[in-house]
Every structure is written in C-alpha cells, then in structure tokens.
C-alpha cells in the first residue's frame, strides 16, 4: 500500500465531496477526469489549489500539471518528483 496514494484518495473524496464513493473504491490508475470520478475543468483548478495548499507545489502552467492529473498514481509520482512527500 502506498501511503501517499491513499492520502490523495482521501483528499479527493473530501475535496470534491464525492457522495457514495470511499477512498478505497478509487482505482490507482483510473482516469480522474471524464468518466469515473466525473471531475471537470473547475475540479482541475481545485486540484492545483490543493497541491499548493497541502504540498507547497505551485503549478503556474496547467500544461505542466496535465500529465500529473491523469490518475491518482501519476499525481502521487508528480508530488514525489517535486520532493514534497
């Protein structure tokens, strides 16, 4: 079990107030946007704010964050690569 991945799943459920979804129901590799969690472009901005608030990572260009926002796993790898976990 990856603690950061689990932490991110819990944050996503709380941040987006996902009803009837528990953190352990989120697949590590499932797409965050479109199908599945039904996140949208506003939610992407919310993730950017969360990264700055909780991990001190500032994303100035949304293109920079795009690869990171593919799934919970890629998001965790992005945070680790920035040395914030």
């Amino acid at each position, binding site marked *: 079990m990856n603690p950061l991945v689990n932490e991110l799943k819990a944050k996503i459920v709380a941040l*987006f107030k996902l*009803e009837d*979804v528990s953190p352990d129901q989120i697949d590590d590799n499932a797409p965050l946007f479109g199908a599945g969690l*039904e996140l949208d472009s506003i939610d992407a901005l*919310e993730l*950017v*704010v*969360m*990264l700055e*608030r909780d991990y001190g990572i500032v994303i100035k260009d949304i293109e920079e964050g795009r690869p990171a926002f593919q799934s919970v796993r890629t998001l965790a790898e992005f945070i680790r690569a920035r040395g914030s976990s």
Partner: protein
Amino acid sequence: MDKLVVAAASVVSEADARAARLGTRFGRLDLSSRLALLAVEALGVDFDALPRDRVGICLATRAGSLPTDIDYWNGRDAPGGPSPTLFAYTLPSAAIGEIAIRHRLTGPSLCLVGENTGALAEAVLLIRRGEVEACLCVECNLVTPALARMIQLPPAARACALFLQRSGDGLRALRENDRDVESLCVLLCPPKSAT
C-alpha cells in the same frame, strides 16, 4: 386562452439538502444550488415527457449569490487562493445552470434577485407569450448566519418550486420533503406594489 395549472409543488429545507443524494456532483454544489435542485427534484416532474427546449426556468433568489460570495471572499487569503469551485457559484443564476444541466433543459431562463420578485407572474408570462409550454418556478431563500449578521435578516435556508404548464392533472399531494408551505406562499403571493 389555455388554462394554466400548477402541476406540482414542493418545499425543501437545508436538512433535506444535506441528507439528499443526487449523484456524484451534488455535494459539490453550493447550498443555494443544492436547495434549488432538490426542490425541482421533489416536484417529481417527468421531463422525458416534455420538449426540453420548451421548458423555462424562473428562479427567484432572495439574496442572490451573497452567501457563496462571502465564503469565497473568506477564502481569499488561503494558500493557493480561494476555491475555484466556489467561484463558479458566485453568480445568482448558478442554480439555473445546475437545474438545466441535470434535466437537460434548454428553454429560456430568468433570474430575479430580491424579495417579492414576482417570479410566478414572470413564469406565467413566459407561457402566455408562447415562449415555453411549461415553466419551473423556483424560489430560493438562503440567508446564512454570516450573511444574516451582515444584512440584519434572520437566517433561512429553504427553497420551493412550482411546475406550471398549460394543462395537466392539477397539484399533486405534498411529499416527504415538502416540510414548509410558507415558502410556497412567498412564491404564490403577488409582489407588493411600491407605496
């Protein structure tokens, strides 16, 4: 002239909105939109039986988006800035969008802010002018404690909805969520003329 009827009516409270489960997105809406959306849901209208571009939405909101505006403003100093999600709801008409998205309604809409807005009369006119066949008329009365302190009004959190159409079976029986008919009266009462 065709007979217009109130085909359905509903009233919902904050407790109803907090307990309701209307899909993954519902929890992300601001309270005003949740109340309005739930009031429409409680109407039990079968939108599949209606031409969706011929259904209007008339929203009366007592305080507009002020409750959400305050929450957004209070988040301005947070790391990363205020919530982008909240920003999307700093418009008085946001609830109209949520109702339209959920029920795929594409007819005309109207948002009226303040007390005694005459929303019901506007909904009737939309139908009488032939712009729509039916109209959702929603009144949202949300005054959060933070806003109440600011504008010297008692806190309130409820919404009511009416569904007007040219003909139908008349008003259905009130349901579990219809806790308070007082809000309906606000919607049904004509606006007071200025004196």
